[in-house]
């Protein structure tokens, strides 16, 4: 599946699904991410942590080209994102869509399949069945025809996960899916992600709660505009790195 240009590259590509090189993103004149070099390994649960405004969401969005990249390169299985869109599923923050939109839970999940359908082709009984299956996986089959605004926050988040499952991707990029959700939702999401991980998929999650990082994840990316640390939890999730990540802002203000 992978394009092997040289031995060295192919080795890296066998191990990592996303390779980020020299990535910088600037909003107007504010640098949001500065010269990030980072690879996401396959078959791992990866947490992105950092203080507010550290560029966590931006990092995830930059991988998908949802924000303009000022410099650097992102490759997904050795190709630019535009050539490998179907390998990536994105779960945005819940607030990014209008939940009053006239649609139901099943329909939102089915939208995850629109990319595979491509232009002009209509959803059909096959996509409907697949969407139903995914909704079932997140425990919401009884809510299929519920207008999405009438679901609880946790249920909405699970609908988003079901939509990502429908995309049947290799890489799952998620922006704080556990933020403010109920216990059932958190358990459901984690157990589904655990299974995806076992299938060798890459799961990248912007995560807020530091206490649960070592419990839920194998790998951590610590970011505060710059990349502070990146690696297996046991090696890099240390007090020193945490201090460096969360004190960065202070350091800037002292300067």
């Amino acid at each position, binding site marked *: 599946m992978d394009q092997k240009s040289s031995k060295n590259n192919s080795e890296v590509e066998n191990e990592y699904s996303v390779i980020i090189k020299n990535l910088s993103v600037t909003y107007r004149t504010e640098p949001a991410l500065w010269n990030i070099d980072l690879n996401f390994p396959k078959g791992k649960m990866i947490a992105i942590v950092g203080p507010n405004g550290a560029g966590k969401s931006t990092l995830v*969005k930059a991988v*998908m*080209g*949802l924000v303009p990249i000022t410099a650097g390169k992102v490759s997904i299985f050795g190709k630019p994102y535009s050539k490998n*869109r179907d390998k*990536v*599923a*994105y779960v*945005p923050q819940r607030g*990014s*869509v*209008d939940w009053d*939109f*006239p*649609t*139901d839970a099943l329909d*939102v999940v089915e*939208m*995850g399949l*629109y*990319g595979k*359908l*491509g*232009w*002009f*082709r*209509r*959803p059909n009984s096959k996509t409907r069945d697949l969407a139903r299956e995914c909704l079932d996986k997140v425990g919401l089959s009884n809510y299929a025809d519920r*207008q999405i605004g009438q679901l609880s926050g946790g249920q909405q988040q699970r609908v988003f996960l079901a*939509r990502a499952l429908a995309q049947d991707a290799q890489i799952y990029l998620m922006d704080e899916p556990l933020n403010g959700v109920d216990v059932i939702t958190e358990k459901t999401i984690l157990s589904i992600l655990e299974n995806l991980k076992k299938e060798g998929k890459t799961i990248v999650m912007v995560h807020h709660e530091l206490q649960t990082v070592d419990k839920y994840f194998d790998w951590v990316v610590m970011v505060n505009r710059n990349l502070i640390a990146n690696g297996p939890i046991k090696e890099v999730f240390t007090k020193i790195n945490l201090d460096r990540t969360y004190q960065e802002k202070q350091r800037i203000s002292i300067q």
Partner: protein
Amino acid sequence: MEISSDLIIIGTAILVAANCASIGVFLVLRKMAMMSDAISHSVLLGIVIAVFAVGGREPVAVIVGGVLSGILTISLVELLYRSGKLKQDSSIGIIFPFLFAIGVILVTQAGNVHIDVQHVLYGSIEFAPFDTLYLDELDIGSKSIWVLGILAISNVSFIVILYKELKISTFDKSLALGAGLMPLLVHYLLMIMVATTAVVAFESVGAILVIAFFIVPASAAFLLTDRLSRMLVLSVFLGIISAVIGYLFALFADVSISGSMASITGIIFGLIWVFGPNRGLISRWRQVSKQRFEINLGILLTHIQKELGSDRQVSTSTLSNSLGWTKEYSEKLSEFIQEQKFVEKNTQGNFILTDIGLKKVENYSN
């Protein structure tokens, strides 16, 4: 002649309504309703320039001019609010009066061209029957019906063919982008359809009615349904109903046709807003007061259970003191819990929970 001119006017109005109300659904859902306001005014500039350029009201030139000025409006508005601090509503408020005003200046300079500002705002649907289209000098019927009919076919095809693409890009732009369904392209195609619809409809019914038909039926439909497909159908239906009732009212009261149609869209919206099922004002108020009642019932029963066996036992008269409710409300609830057999009165006239009441309290504490 009398009947057929009535039919032409009503047919024109129905087609305008259907065209605007269908496309309007996406404007409302994209929170771009005011963009239709901007476009339907600023098309004047394009129309006037087109009329100057070809020396007459050549329909194709007029449409092209109008669409171009519509796109100019959208681009300038987006340029403004993407470039700095200004919000979209302010950007719209800056751009369209400016373009419209230039149009107005040009119109007043155009002594030899038959456009006037009155016509621009209120249209001249009354004259639709007298404006016929000729094909090789053969009279093939009302121009407005032909033009609007072709527009209706294009709008319906646009929505049917790109239904999925329109839906996904309206609901979640990032998902559409990830799916390779180019939300920006879809956005501009939609805006071209809005501009075309605005120009063509504007010719017959004027700027104000165009805005009413773009925004009001779609908003009313939004209050009535939870499905996009139904919202589209309902919006068109409400638009058409407003057009027909508005026309009949105008005939009956001998008032402006477009004015009365626009008023009817507003009245129908108002009725749905107040009386609509589920999301109507009254039904929402009922739901809320029903929930409040349930909650207060729970508070009361829990309160009775808590005080049971203490020396502060509960009766109707203690409620306004202990729970802060009015005397009337305390009496009303006390009566209700006795009727429902949640409580009985003991010999001192204090409430004690029955088995049914105890079960009810358990439900609340879960």
